[in-house]
C-alpha cells in the first residue's frame, strides 16, 4: 500500500502541495492527472521518497518514509520501487541488458541470474535481440521498454512512472502502457502513472486529478 496523509510541500514561497491525501491499495493502478504546475510531479517525488514533505506523512508498505534518513529512503526505494521516467533515463555507458540488470546488481544479486532474468524480461517486452545494443542505437520506444524492464526486474511492490509515454508516438505509447499494466497486474504490483493524457489514464483503474497543489477528485483514490 502507498499512502500520502495530509502532505504539504513548499519550494521557498511557492506552495507545491497542500493537504494532499491519497491511498493506493496493493495491486491498484492510478493515473495522477493535472495541468503543468498542478503538483503531480511533486507528489510523485514525495511518494517515492525523493523529497521529504514539509507536512504530513508518506507511508510505503507500512513504513513511514518521512522519518527515515536519506540513506534508508534510498534503500527502501531500491528494494520496493521501480521508477520509469519520460525519457527512460538509461545509463548511456551500459547496454540495454546491463541497464535492466542494474537494480538486481545494486541489491547484491549474482550477475548470472540477474542476466537471465533481464533477458527474460526483454523477451517479454519484445526486444531480446537488442540486449547488447547501446542505448544510443535504439529508438525511444525500445529504450522505454528497457526502462520498464529495469523498473520491474527486482519485483518491486510498486512502480511509479512519470509521463512514461510523453516522448513516444501513440502506437509505441500504447505498447509501453500495455506492457506496464500487464506486468504489474500479473505480479500484483501497485502502479502510479503521472500523466496529462486521458488515453494514458484510461489504461488504469482509477484517476486522481490535481489542481494548484491539491487533489480535486476523487478524495482518496476512489474509482473515477
Amino acid at each position, binding site marked *: 500500500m502507498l499512502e500520502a496523509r495530509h502532505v504539504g510541500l513548499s519550494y521557498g514561497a511557492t506552495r507545491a502541495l497542500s493537504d494532499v491525501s491519497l491511498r493506493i491499495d496493493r495491486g491498484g493502478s492510478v493515473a495522477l492527472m493535472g495541468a503543468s504546475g498542478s503538483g503531480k510531479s511533486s507528489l510523485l517525488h514525495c511518494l517515492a521518497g525523493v523529497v521529504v514533505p514539509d507536512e504530513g506523512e508518506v507511508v510505503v508498505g507500512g513504513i513511514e518514509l518521512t522519518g527515515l534518513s536519506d540513506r534508508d529512503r534510498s534503500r527502501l526505494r531500491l528494494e520496493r520501487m521501480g521508477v520509469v521516467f519520460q525519457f527512460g533515463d538509461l545509463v548511456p555507458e551500459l547496454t540495454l541488458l546491463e541497464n535492466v540488470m542494474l537494480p538486481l546488481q545494486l541489491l547484491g544479486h549474482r550477475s548470472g541470474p540477474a542476466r537471465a532474468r533481464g533477458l527474460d524480461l526483454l523477451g517479454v517486452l519484445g526486444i531480446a535481440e537488442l540486449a547488447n545494443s547501446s542505448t544510443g542505437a535504439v529508438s525511444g520506444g525500445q529504450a522505454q521498454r528497457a526502462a520498464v524492464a529495469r523498473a520491474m526486474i527486482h519485483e518491486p511492490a510498486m512502480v511509479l512512472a512519470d509521463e512514461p509515454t510523453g516522448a513516444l508516438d501513440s502506437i509505441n505509447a500504447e505498447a509501453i502502457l500495455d506492457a506496464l499494466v500487464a506486468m504489474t497486474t500479473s505480479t500484483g504490483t501497485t502502479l502510479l502513472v503521472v500523466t496529462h493524457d*486521458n*488515453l494514458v489514464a*484510461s489504461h488504469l*483503474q482509477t484517476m486522481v486529478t490535481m489542481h494548484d497543489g491539491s487533489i480535486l477528485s476523487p478524495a482518496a483514490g476512489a474509482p*473515477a
Partner: protein
Amino acid sequence: MRLAGLRCRVPESCIHRSSPARVAPWVYLWSIVLKVSSTEAVLALLEPEPAYGYTLKHQYDRWFGRKRPLGFGQVYSTLSRLERKGWIAQSQVQAGHGPERRLYEITADGVTAIDGWVGTPQAPDLFATSSLYARVTVALLSGRDAGQVLAGQRKVHLERMRELQASRRQAQGPDLLAITYELTHLDADLRWIEESGTRLTSMTGEDGGAIDA
C-alpha cells in the same frame, strides 16, 4: 435573470440558481450545434417565458440549429408531443383571420424534465458531444451548473474509454481500428470537456445570476 432576447416570466420557483453565470455574447458562437435533441431543446426554450411556435422556431435556429434549422412542421409536432407528455400547456389561444395562435408555457413537470435531461450524462457514443453542447448551453442559459454537466459526462467518457482499452488488447484487424477510432474521438471529447471547464470559470461573473447574449 436575463436571457438572450428574452424577458423572463418564469415563476421564481422554476428558476435554477445553483451556479449562475454571466456570459459574453461570443460564448454562444461555440455553443451553437449541428444536431441536437429538438424535443428537449424546444422545451428548454419555453422555460424563461411562454412563447408561440413561430418564436420558438427562430430561437431554436439561433441557439441550436445553425446548420439544421427546425422546420415549422417539426416545431408544431414537437409542441404536440410535449403537450401530450404534460411538459407544456397552452396558456392562451388567439383567434384571428388566419390560423389560431397558441401561446405555450412550460409546466412544473417540464422543468423537471429539463433538469433530468441537462443533468444526465449520455451514453458516450461518437456523437454524444453534439447533444452535450446543447445541454451545456441550456445549463448556461438557465443558470444550472454547467460544470456539473461537464463533470458527469467526463466520468462516463472515461468509463467507456477503460472498457475500450480492455477490448483493444484482444482486438485485431477492423475491430482494432474501430476501437481506436472510438477511443481517439472520446479523447478529443474529453479535451473539449476539460477546456470548457476551464473556460466556464472565466465566464462566471462576480455578480452572478445574469446571462447576457
